[in-house]
């Protein structure tokens, strides 16, 4: 992160590095994601070579210090938001899976102890895909990320974990999972769970959307964890973690909505009715204008909060409002995307029905995709 810079100017110019990175991500999203998204969603699995190829992008390597085998780049929430947006333009669910290891790396860098960084970060710098993820959500109505009911108690030198996490991306396969819990009498805590210890159960769970994110439910019953599993060796800044993850989800929503805007623009210019393209009708054209307007609002709010995080400014309120705005308008944009295609929008031949289902998750997801 950058130290707080004084008197920065309002600026929407990307750095050269960000511009180049965006091109790479956009190429990857177009070539490796968009075409495969539909079948991956239907089969609720991702072609095995996809994650290997995503690892070649080096996403998780970039912010890892050189001494630990990484590229030693300054961790940039803005750059991470751009990565998430561009990958989601290919497919939101596959993007969520691909950036889950990055989310864990970011959280380790942000709140891990030196020993934990030294132990885990080199594992992300081998060139192979390291399936790792973060788990916060719990399966109950009115769940709130600030109040997890998964409980940990101190047990000897280590900890004992009880509770259930849901909607965990890559949850079936990830052999490193950061689990957020309430440490009895001490407040929020996060635990690095390796492999599948006794008492931990993984079950794939089908959802309305995000089929290819391989969401799973993880149940913990009297799971004994070693002393060094406690992230940072002490209290967990849950609020900050939630805020950074909200920005990641916002960025995924922005990329998906951009895909919708691009798609309906082309479709409505080609689709003929009453002797001319339906885009010649204000009732159609104004819906598209509104998609573009609200989408730009989503993007700017996400960028603003991410830039504040990057500068070391307080960004809690901005992240909260960005998430709220993105959740509401992403759903509307998804709905309008389907409506603009009419009956075709309802059929799975076109991707908008999948985007619609995926975007319903924006309001619900928390604790994943941390920037």
């Amino acid at each position: 992160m950058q130290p707080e810079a004084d008197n920065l100017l309002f600026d929407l110019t990307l750095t050269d590095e960000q511009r180049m990175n965006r091109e790479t991500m956009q190429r990857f999203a177009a070539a490796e994601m968009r075409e495969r998204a539909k079948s991956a969603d239907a089969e609720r699995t991702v072609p095995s070579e996809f994650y290997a190829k995503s690892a070649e992008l080096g996403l998780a390597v970039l912010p890892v210090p050189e001494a630990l085998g990484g590229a030693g780049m300054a961790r940039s929430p803005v750059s991470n938001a751009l990565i998430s947006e561009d990958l989601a333009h290919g497919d939101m669910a596959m993007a969520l899976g691909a950036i889950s290891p990055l989310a864990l790396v970011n959280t380790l860098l942000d709140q891990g102890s030196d020993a934990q960084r030294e132990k885990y970060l080199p594992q992300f710098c081998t060139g192979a895909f390291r399936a790792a993820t973060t788990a916060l959500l719990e399966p109950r109505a009115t769940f709130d990320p600030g109040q997890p009911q998964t409980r940990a108690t101190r047990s000897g030198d280590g900890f004992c974990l009880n509770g259930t996490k849901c909607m965990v991306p890559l949850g079936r396969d990830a052999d490193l999972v950061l689990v957020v819990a309430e440490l009895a009498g001490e407040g929020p805590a996060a635990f690095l769970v390796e492999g599948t210890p006794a008492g931990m159960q993984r079950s794939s769970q089908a959802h309305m959307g995000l089929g290819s994110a391989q969401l799973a439910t993880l149940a913990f019953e009297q799971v004994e964890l070693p002393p060094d599993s406690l992230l940072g060796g002490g209290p967990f800044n849950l609020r900050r973690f939630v805020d950074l993850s909200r920005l990641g989800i916002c960025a995924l929503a922005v990329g998906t909505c951009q895909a919708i805007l691009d798609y309906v623009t082309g479709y409505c210019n080609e689709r003929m009715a009453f002797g001319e393209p339906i885009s010649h009708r204000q009732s159609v054209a104004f819906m598209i204008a509104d998609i573009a307007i609200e989408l730009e609002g989503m993007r700017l709010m996400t960028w603003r909060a991410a830039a504040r995080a990057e500068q070391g400014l307080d960004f809690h309120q901005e992240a909260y409002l960005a998430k709220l705005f993105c959740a509401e308008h992403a759903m509307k944009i998804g709905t309008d995307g389907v409506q603009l295609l009419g009956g075709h929008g309802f059929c799975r031949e076109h991707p908008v029905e999948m985007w619609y289902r995926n975007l319903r998750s924006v309001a619900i997801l928390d604790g994943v995709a941390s920037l």
Partner: protein
Amino acid sequence: MINLELSDKHQETYNNLRMVAEHMMRPYSRKYDREEHSYPKEMEDVAKLLDSGATARASAPGSPRGAVKNGANLLAVSAYEALCWGDVGLMLAMPGRGLGNAAINAVGTPEQIQQHGSSYAAMCITEPGAGSDSANISTTAVLDGEEWVLNGEKIYVTAGGRCDTLVVWATLDKSAGKAAIKSFIVKKGTPGCEVTRLEHKMGIRASDTAAISFSDCRIPRENLLGSAEVAPDAEGRKKAFGGVMQTFDNTRPPVAAMAIGVARAALDLTREMLADEGLTLDFETKPGNSSAVQAEIYRMEAEWQAARLLVQKAAWMADNKQPNSMEASMCKAKAGRMGNEVTLRCVELCQGLGYSEDQLLEKFARDSKIIDIFEGTQQIQQLIVARRLLGKSSSELK
């Protein structure tokens, strides 16, 4: 490098103007809302203060690192926002700051600027039969010897009653369409030019809105702004009118900023009243787990911030010489509807207090309505955005 915070200097200007708005405008808000058509002389002091630069660098680019980035446009939207937090109607009633002044200074010859630039100039575009369709105006200008003779009727002239100069859009030849539309400087008091009516309005009552008729009104030949030539071909005509319309790219973000200011005023007052009733906001609990009123405030704050960022982006693009026609319309559409929605909802949330003239919430709502109408309605902005996105001409997407 991406940064969406105002620079320290712009923030300081904004803060200073908010003080001006609070202490020199708000105390007169209700008075001039009730006394429609009476002149808010107190705004002369505010105008003087702004001109002196003691509180605002609003007249000059205030960029700490060169004049291009973060120049006049971003500063202007901050200034409009701050002053309209005070009062939209009073801001519009400040003498010497009419849209006509902007037009004279933008396209006038050095002589015209010298002679008329510092007068109080209003803009006459809209007619009873032509509003958004400004290419279809029917006020005529005919050259007779060394004088132009104007005939026609103009309405919705902001400051038309109080100004001393008018900039009038008229056509030299209606059959030549857009390209024949020119603007003319008319001194008030010229025979044949008459203020026929002052409108009684829903809001911005401190600002006078006039109907003005021109009946064989003769003005000197040199009072035509810009060139008298009518382009001979279709391409040239399109370009000529495009130049006229381009001025809206610069004026729409500041007008959108007016909605940002008045919506902020409504939100601030509403949050104050709700806090008095014990409402707390943690910006943490998910909206669905919050009370309905908390969730509503969160939602409005989010809408407000999105609209504000769209306005700032459009202004930033203008400062950086990037074409911003679509973004100017996007921000105007978003800010206009957000301003209406937020101010009206605030009235409802505060119930009897919101609806009462004891407080200003009901006035904020009435004042905000016009912002979604003038300088291009919501629907005109959507049309402009849609045409750009879809690559359509005005004959294809009507």
